[in-house]
């Protein structure tokens, strides 16, 4: 019978100066070699639990802890992070803040050197972990030259170099594009299976990591609300209102189908078993040709909100970032700008705002352009939220009465809403541009953002959102522009661009094979209900 690598009994923790405890009465046991996903909304206590498991809570952050929590047999109240480092490796959200050395080889060696391992053992461990994590080709690279995905892999390799029994990861994919995020999850599953390392992974994008998990622990208000297999967790999550359920699970629940599937593959098999195989048959539809006459397009007005004509941006001694982009966005349109990392999405937004100049081409804007860049915290420079924007803006951000709060004390979602209102505070805008606004955001916050985007569009502003999140794009957008390297490669309504896509597609569309252009759980459920009645 497997031993417990983590054992918690009535564990409580309260941050210094906090009124309420962040963890309360926590009971939890995790077996050696298990792959556990921590689910929960923002502020539920997932990150605090991870910080308790690695000893940062209470030794680094201070505060009051009571009850019992042991990791690898060591009590976290008696043993600090340095001692627990021999048992567990930890990887945080932002790879930039956890890679501390200039070279990859030195980074991988650091933890072992702190443990006083002999030089030969350090060299061997570095070599082995680099090969196991697929970063051997990066060993002689400088860390500042690595991409976000490479940096996160190096951080995980550094955490694993000492062969810990437990690996803790706090939203490690939130800064990565979907391809790098998916690769990372499957890499974690492989090392869990091959090395027997227990993995505890906190994530918001559950549809990405549930297929790899043995078990899901849902945390709500600092305590365990559900602890079960992925399938049972999804049944619980849909019964609880669906905030934590995957899109496919929500579709099944809305259509009254059961049992709730944990993966797209299981969903397809379930549909076949129900006699709905025809719904799941792939729908082969050509993507709309760029520049072709598009019957779905809104009636063109004399003045576009934004227009780019033959836009080029070439970096001196560097790559061609944009290569002849033509794009016209009408007032009131809600556009999802999609494409892989480096396709030029962010650059295009920066050019529209005037933060950069194009090498060639013309840009036209019908009025003011508001741009919210990727890190909302960068906009908040004062000591009080009220100094950032007026009372009306605070109310619009849902922060009425919290004007005295320091912006850094706000949650990620609150910072995002406040920063958006700050850029909108100059008066009516012809266009509102948002760059990756849903990174690390849970579903209720995404729904709230989609609603705000709808309000802005209804007010006449063109809204362009650069995003990797296909589920979010399907929720808010009435047009999807897909960029290849520096050019627009597809442009059409979401049902056409996303339903027939391979990578740029939602889980619902993948499950239904693109049938009926259904992208969201609600659309998929309506389609399934029609098929069931028929």
């Amino acid at each position: 019978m497997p031993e417990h690598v983590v054992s918690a009994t009535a564990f409580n923790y309260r941050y210094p100066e906090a009124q309420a405890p962040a963890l309360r009465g926590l009971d939890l046991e995790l077996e050696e070699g298990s792959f556990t996903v921590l689910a929960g909304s923002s502020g539920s206590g997932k990150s605090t639990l991870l910080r308790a498991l690695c000893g940062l809570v209470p030794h680094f952050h201070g505060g009051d802890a009571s009850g019992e929590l042991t990791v690898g047999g060591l009590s976290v109240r008696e043993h600090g992070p340095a001692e627990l480092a021999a048992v567990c490796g930890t990887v945080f959200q932002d790879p930039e803040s956890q890679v501390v050395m200039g070279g990859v080889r030195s980074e991988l060696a650091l933890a072992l050197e702190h443990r006083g391992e002999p030089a030969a053992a350090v060299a061997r461990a570095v070599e082995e972990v680099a090969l196991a994590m697929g970063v051997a080709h990066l060993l002689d690279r400088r860390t500042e030259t690595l991409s976000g995905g490479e940096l996160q892999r190096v951080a995980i390799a550094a955490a694993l170099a000492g062969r810990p029994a437990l690996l803790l990861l706090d939203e490690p994919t939130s800064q990565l594009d979907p391809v790098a995020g998916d690769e990372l999850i499957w890499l974690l599953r492989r090392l869990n299976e091959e090395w027997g390392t227990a993995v505890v992974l906190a994530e918001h994008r559950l549809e990405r990591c549930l297929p790899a998990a043995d078990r899901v622990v849902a945390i709500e208000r600092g305590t365990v609300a559900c602890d079960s297999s992925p399938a049972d967790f999804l049944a619980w999550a849909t019964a609880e209102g669906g905030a934590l359920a995957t899109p496919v699970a929500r579709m099944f629940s809305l259509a009254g189908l059961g049992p709730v599937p944990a993966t797209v593959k299981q969903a397809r098999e379930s549909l076949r078993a129900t006699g709905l195989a025809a719904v799941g048959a792939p729908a082969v539809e050509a993507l709309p040709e760029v520049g072709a006459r598009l019957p779905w397009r809104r009636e063109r007005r004399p003045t576009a909100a934004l227009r780019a004509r033959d836009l080029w941006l070439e970096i001196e001694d560097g790559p061609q970032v944009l290569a002849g982009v033509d794009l016209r966005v009408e007032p009131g349109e809600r556009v999802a700008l999609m494409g892989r990392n480096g396709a030029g999405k962010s650059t295009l937004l920066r050019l529209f705002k005037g933060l950069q100049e194009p090498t060639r081409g013309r840009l036209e804007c019908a009025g003011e352009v508001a741009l919210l860049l990727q890190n909302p915290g960068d906009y908040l420079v004062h000591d009080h939220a009220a100094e950032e924007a007026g009372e009306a803006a605070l109310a619009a951000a849902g922060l009425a009465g919290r004007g005295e709060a320091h912006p850094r004390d706000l949650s990620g979602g609150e910072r995002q809403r406040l920063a958006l209102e700050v850029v909108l505070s100059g008066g009516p805008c012809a266009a509102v541009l948002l760059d990756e606004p849903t990174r690390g955001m849970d579903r209720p916050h995404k729904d709230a953002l989609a609603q705000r985007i709808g309000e802005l569009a209804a007010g006449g502003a063109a809204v362009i959102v650069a995003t990797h999140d296909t589920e979010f794009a399907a929720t808010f957008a009435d047009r999807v522009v897909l960029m290849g390297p520096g050019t627009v490669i597809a442009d059409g309504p979401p049902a056409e661009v996303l339903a027939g896509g391979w990578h740029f597609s939602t889980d619902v569309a993948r499950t239904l094979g693109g049938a009926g252009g259904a992208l969201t759980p609600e659309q998929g459920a309506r389609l399934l209900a029609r098929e069931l009645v028929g």
Partner: protein
Amino acid sequence: MSLVPVYRRRPSPLHAASAGATTALCVSLALVCALYDHPVVVAAVIVAVIGAALAAGVGSEIARAARLSVPLALLVTLINPLVYAEGNTLLIRGGSVLGHRFDITLEALAAGGLAGLRVAAFVMPFALFAACVDPDDLLRSLRRVSYRSALTAALATRLVPVLARDATRMGDAARCRPHPPGRLAVARAALSGALERAVDVAAALEVRGYSAGRRSARARRSLSRHDARVLAAAGAVALTAVFGKLAGAGSVQSYPRLEITLGPAELALSALFLVAAALPFAGRSARLGVAHA
């Protein structure tokens, strides 16, 4: 693109040698610039560094650093005749302000030029150092002296560009606001962001066992053929420079008349520096990857 060279591993004898050996060569070349102001000797150091950089595959990095040093050298050249009115050959008679005469002499101008050349030359070995020496390797060897200082230096090396990117991002965000905040507010926010990042880095160090208090002994590494050649070159440059200076070679007198001796001693010194700097790259054993499948 950064004007300051950044280390990238390349297949060259200077990169293959240990950080200590390559540092010794760069320091010895800088020592020549510190000891001599003879233009031929200083020019020989510049040529030696450029040759070594080209042979090591970092020519473009050194060229960028050289471009950085030119304005500095020009500044020194122009300021010297304004502050020194000595010298016999008067070029421009200036006025007198608060009892100080502003005459410009040929000797002061020439001395400024020599000082400027020296400044430019002084930048070159350090640029070669930045491009060819792995900072992590160098810091690892310094850990025996002070582990915490070495780690602090490593963190600073790593975090300075990260913080610079943070500050640029915050500047962009400020430009996106309808009413951009003052520079002081942005600077304060950038500083507080830097402190927040520092806390995150401290947490990352903690979970890597920093406070465990144990440290690995440094691996013993035998001298490679590249170490031996680079150290020999460094020794040759340093010893030649010191003995040459003690022997009075390469002397320059700027005032009252400019006197620059150019004899066999200066030519021999310059030639020796050039040959010594080329030593790590000479011969078959300096080549990397000589085996054939």
